């Protein structure tokens, strides 16, 4: 049983402190997950909260013999899908998210000389990622940034491992072409 699954087992037994540890541990990865999926930062916090609320409500359906992250990201993916369904002005939000993220990321770069160049790379990576179909982007983010294995992604999203693999292959192939076109892949 992994550490997070153990905490969930404690939550199931009615120990709220264990849930606080889970929130501490996964707030950062979940926040990054939503931001990379194109949620603007102000809304990403709401989605993180909503995910944890759903996790708590569904706590008794979690099997502590399994790993926690696939279950968590399965719920988070539903939260993300529900969010977009509610949004009427998706394009506006994505554009705003891009602006906000550009500003925040710029603030994080410590070396002033590299700031402009790095911001440009980050912007181009983000734009390239957002050219992928949503379902491909979701799978790639889960594999590359969140570190889930193919079988865990398949479990989280209710897909076959073959589908997960083919989406990752397609996404990386398309990204490779796009990054090369933007001049980001020179040796």
């Amino acid at each position: 049983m992994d550490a997070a699954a153990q905490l969930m087992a404690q939550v199931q037994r009615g120990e709220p402190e264990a849930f606080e540890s889970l929130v501490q541990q996964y707030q950062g990865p979940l926040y990054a997950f939503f931001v990379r999926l194109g949620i603007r930062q102000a809304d990403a916090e709401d989605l993180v909260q909503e995910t944890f609320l759903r996790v708590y409500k569904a706590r008794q359906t979690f099997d502590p013999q399994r790993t926690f992250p696939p279950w968590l990201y399965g719920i988070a993916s539903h939260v993300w899908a529900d969010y977009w369904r509610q949004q009427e002005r998706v394009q506006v939000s994505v554009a705003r998210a891009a602006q906000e993220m550009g500003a925040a990321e710029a603030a994080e770069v410590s070396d002033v000389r590299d700031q402009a160049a790095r911001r440009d790379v980050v912007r181009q990576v983000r734009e390239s990622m957002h050219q992928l179909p949503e379902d491909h982007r979701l799978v790639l983010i889960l594999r590359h940034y969140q570190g889930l294995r193919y079988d865990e992604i398949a479990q989280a999203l209710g897909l076959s491992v073959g589908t997960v693999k083919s989406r990752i292959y397609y996404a990386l192939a398309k990204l490779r072409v796009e990054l090369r076109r933007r001049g980001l892949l020179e040796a």
Partner: protein
Amino acid sequence: MDCQAIREQMIDYFYRELPPEEWARIEEHLLGCRECQEELATLRRVAATLDQWQVPEPPRGLVERTLARLRAEVIGVLPWSGREVVSWATPFLALGLGGLAAGASLGLTAHLTPHQGTPFMLAVLGIFWAVLYGGLFLATLGGWAPWKQLARVALLAGGLAVLLTPVLSIPEVVEACGELLGRARGSVALNALLFLVGGLYTAAPLLVAHRVAGRTPGPVPPSQGLASGLLYLLLVAPVFYLQCAALALGVGATWMAGGIVGVLAGGPAGIWLAGHRAAASA
């Protein structure tokens, strides 16, 4: 193993998604194949470029806000205890708060109803309010998520209406309407005005309550607005009834009809306004 087969597994190799023997076979092939080494190097450059996309840390206090929301919406935790309320204390606490609210409501409104305010009537009204307030407090404090939001809005709207009553009682408003229209008692114009003002007078606390306490994530069906409106109406019905009973029958009936329509329209309208506000801020 030829290069084509190796390249088909290159991404699995990179992400270490292969069984050890497959992984070792590709490793061995790579040692002697410059083209496949190039392919792997390109894949690593793609990954390294993706890795440059770092996102900011979550905002400070996210954990605390998440836990506070969890307590408020799901667990039903008392803010000062940090413990889940599943004990025997919650119903007693709710009933105690309900009793206090009932006492305060009686204190604020009993003197406005001299004709109906017999001890027996006041006792019945006090018990009615204590039970109703207590139930709403229980729904707010307890873990019944579907009822929590409705109860919160109904409590706030009812409290506002009771507070409004001594400041601006229904007979005073009716009197002002009569003066406005030159005391055209019984006329169609006065009845229409009373109907309209009665609706607004009743709906206003509900709209304010939705604005203050009605913020929920995601869309809320208008039926929830209707349900919270009906709970609110139940809460304030005695005050309105006792005040309207002091009026002429036609005037009181017109006012109450306007009030009922105001609640039926005000609940869903409050939900719509809260949703509109949430959409505008998104």
